[in-house]
């Protein structure tokens, strides 16, 4: 089959980007969207042109690396599917597909379809964990967890952190992502002791990163490759409101968002060294 890929090309974060059209004559209905890009990139390399940069790793829909907009839809038209598992048979011969990176202030473009999602890591670092150091755990069966709670926690924990929810949201909100972790840990008995503070700190970091607010539109859950339910946002809001009351005397500190990649040209050396 034949498709035309109209792809966002941008050399660096600070350079100006534009769409460039590439015909792909030898697409195959069984290949994935990413394999179609592989084929195009081989052709570009052979012509000594710069291949299209796109993020990918596991190519089985679980690592969360890949993702871009296809004709305005995050991860393309097939529900519950990342672009690495989206096969070309879902498009028609002759289709033109517009590929562009996630667009959000908190996800600056690095190159072409690759964006910086370190803001997601910082939201987790702010409180997306249960504080239990290695070695201090009781026997696994000492903490009974009702099957239903375990199942619901798992539904929320299935998030792969790809960022499609942010890209699809007109406000570029990270509420589904943040809510998923707050829900996963908050449902489980192990997560109860830190439930209030976790929600406050994660929400504060989310706001600090420049994600927009949630206005209950629901595009996020619609494009989510793991179908994280919208109710995780309700759970986040509930935990946040309760937490702000319980913890009203506590100060919440956030981490400074940064988008730089360079470590500086100076060699990094051991601080104890004589001339470092």
């Amino acid at each position, binding site marked *: 089959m034949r498709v035309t890929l109209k792809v966002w090309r941008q*050399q660096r974060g600070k350079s100006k980007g534009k769409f460039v059209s590439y015909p792909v004559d030898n697409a195959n209905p*069984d*290949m994935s969207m*990413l*394999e179609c890009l*592989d*084929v195009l990139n*081989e052709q570009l*390399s*052979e012509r*000594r042109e710069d*291949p299209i*940069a796109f993020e990918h*790793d*596991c*190519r*089985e829909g679980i*690592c*969360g*690396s890949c993702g871009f907009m296809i004709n305005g839809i995050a991860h393309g038209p*097939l529900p*519950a599917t990342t672009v690495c*598992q989206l096969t070309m*048979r879902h498009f028609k011969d002759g289709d033109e597909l517009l590929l562009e990176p996630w667009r959000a202030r908190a996800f600056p473009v690095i190159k072409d379809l*690759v964006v*910086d*999602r370190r803001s997601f*890591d910082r939201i*987790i670092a*702010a409180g*997306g*964990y*249960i504080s*239990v*150091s*290695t*070695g201090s*755990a*009781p026997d*696994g*069966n000492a*903490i009974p*967890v*009702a*099957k239903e709670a*375990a199942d619901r*926690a*798992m539904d929320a*924990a299935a998030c792969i952190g790809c960022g499609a929810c942010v890209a699809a949201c007109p406000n570029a909100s990270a509420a589904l992502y943040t809510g998923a972790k707050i829900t996963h840990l908050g449902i*489980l008995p192990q997560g109860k002791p830190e439930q209030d503070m976790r929600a406050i700190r994660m929400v504060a970091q989310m706001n600090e990163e420049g994600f927009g607010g949630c206005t209950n539109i629901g595009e996020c859950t619609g494009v989510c490759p793991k179908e994280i339910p919208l109710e995780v946002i309700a759970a986040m809001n509930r935990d946040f409101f309760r937490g702000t009351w319980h913890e009203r005397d506590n100060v919440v500190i956030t981490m400074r968002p940064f988008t730089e*990649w*360079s*470590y500086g040209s100076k*060699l*990094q*050396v*051991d601080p104890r*060294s*004589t001339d*470092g």
Partner: protein
Amino acid sequence: MELRSRIPAGPIQEAWDNARFEMKLVNPANKRKHHIIVVGSGLAGGSAAATLGELGYRVSCFCFQDSPRRAHSIAAQGGINAAKNYQNDGDSIWRLFYDTVKGGDFRAREANVYRLAQISVQIIDQCVAQGVPFAREYGGTLTNRSFGGAQVSRTFYARGQTGQQLLLGAYQALERQVQAGSVTMYPRTEMLDLIVIDGRARGIVTRNLVTGEVNTHIADAVILGTGGYGNVFYLSTNAKGSNVTACWRAHKRGALFANPCFTQIHPTCIPVSGDYQSKLTLMSESLRNDGRIWVPLKKGDKRAPDQIPESERDYYLERRYPSFGNLVPRDVASRNAKYVCDEGRGVGETGLGVYLDFSDAIRRLGRKTIEERYGNLFDMYQRITDEDPYQVPMRIYPAIHYTMGGLWVDYHLMSTIPGLFVIGEANFSDHGANRLGASALMQGLSDGYFIVPYTVGDYLASNKFESVSDSHPEIRNAIACVQQTVQKLLAINGKRTVDSFHRQLGKVVWDYCGMSRTAQGLETAIYQIRELREEYWRDVKVPGSADDLNQSLEKAGRVADFFELAELMCVDALERNESCGGHFREEYQTPEGEAQRDDDNFSYAACWGYRGYGNREDLVKEPLEFEYVHPSQRSYK
């Protein structure tokens, strides 16, 4: 060179306790004076970095992905073993130990395996406390399933996403330490060389994949948790970025590489569909619990599966191995799939596939139960193949999945370079010639959470560390090597792309050093690999520049290392004149076609030392003693 494995003396049950007692401790106030580098952020690297941070060390953790949560451990589906005996079905630490040594076809180090079985129990406790949503019974207790190669139910799981959930647990623990300031995370940063000063590992050279900057990082110890080298085959179930570069460059600096030919072929993957194929997708082995594997009795039977009556089907695993049936270990299941396809009884368009049929299980348990157990896997299969496995049997074929070989380590998980520790799939120690299902997650977390944090402490407390200045000649030298390689790759400007070379290399390794091997084939492979490698350095084309995100350049460096590793794998396979586990030499088989070990001559780990580009490597042997589990012909009949 004599290898000191540092296995503690005395009864195996007490070895780890005794070893820990004898280890020197670092004073809590001194811990933050030590800087430790962890390369890789998967189950092994991520858990090690988090735990070392909790202990108070200053840790720098590096990964080539955009976030530590992307490490390929995330793709593990089936589960994690632990000798909890919660199911009251006769499991014990001793049995897990026994199964793992036997499953590894008596080519693993007994003391390491025993320790792994002991620690398995703590791993589950730790992960539960972190909030890993393991599957539960209605009463709230943890549930288990059985897995290939075992007759007890000891596998803990979180739907078909166990690796993801365990990794997220480690990732969250790691991010907690990032927030606490004890761990500095360096994503999109690739290790390209090891800095060895006065014979000890003292740092690494990295390339920042966004800016192209080459930096050095100095530390008192370096830990590699960089995974396996399955991508040498090009098509594998590994993530596209998985590579051997960190380990290989450490090997070139003096770390011995052990048993490189021990690679695992996983029996249940989706068959190849075309030459554009970029990777193979694994279907969890847990599917074999309820699915029945068969092919038509007749050669070239092109009828649809539902048109083939029971009497004309061959459930070949159930027929040949009545006691284990579809649950035989991976090497046995894979090899048998190859046999029936070689006989011309394979299914699907290419004839390289066998059926994995759930119709009996759906009839017996109902569709809902099957959906609960395997729903996400069935969906994945349907998305890729456009066939509904609830209606039509799945088609599966073996694919490379895991590598048991890796850098040699002693009982402390330290390589032959003092101060360089290697954990998880990147080392060679625990799985022998074949890994049992649900044991990789166990080993990664055991090494990272519970072993290396102790043994690194012992190393730090036992040595003195001079400060190192950035003008040290070894550092200059390492940076120059890295920059030269990068410039050289960009300067060749030939005609063939990196992927085209990688694909061709993978085919050679798969054909001659894959599921079955012969001396003649391996010699052919070594010749072809050398020819192709020469061509690579003459004619590869790497577009772009060195000072921004250049994915072709990243791949080019990794493929260059795969070429050298591929040759070593074949040399190792040729040297080992026996069959064991995943290493099947056609010349050495029993009359029934099973692997024929030669314990008198090959009961050792083959450890290879680098001797310069293109030169044959040196072989050093670590003899393996089996005091507790006596080597026998593995039988699953």
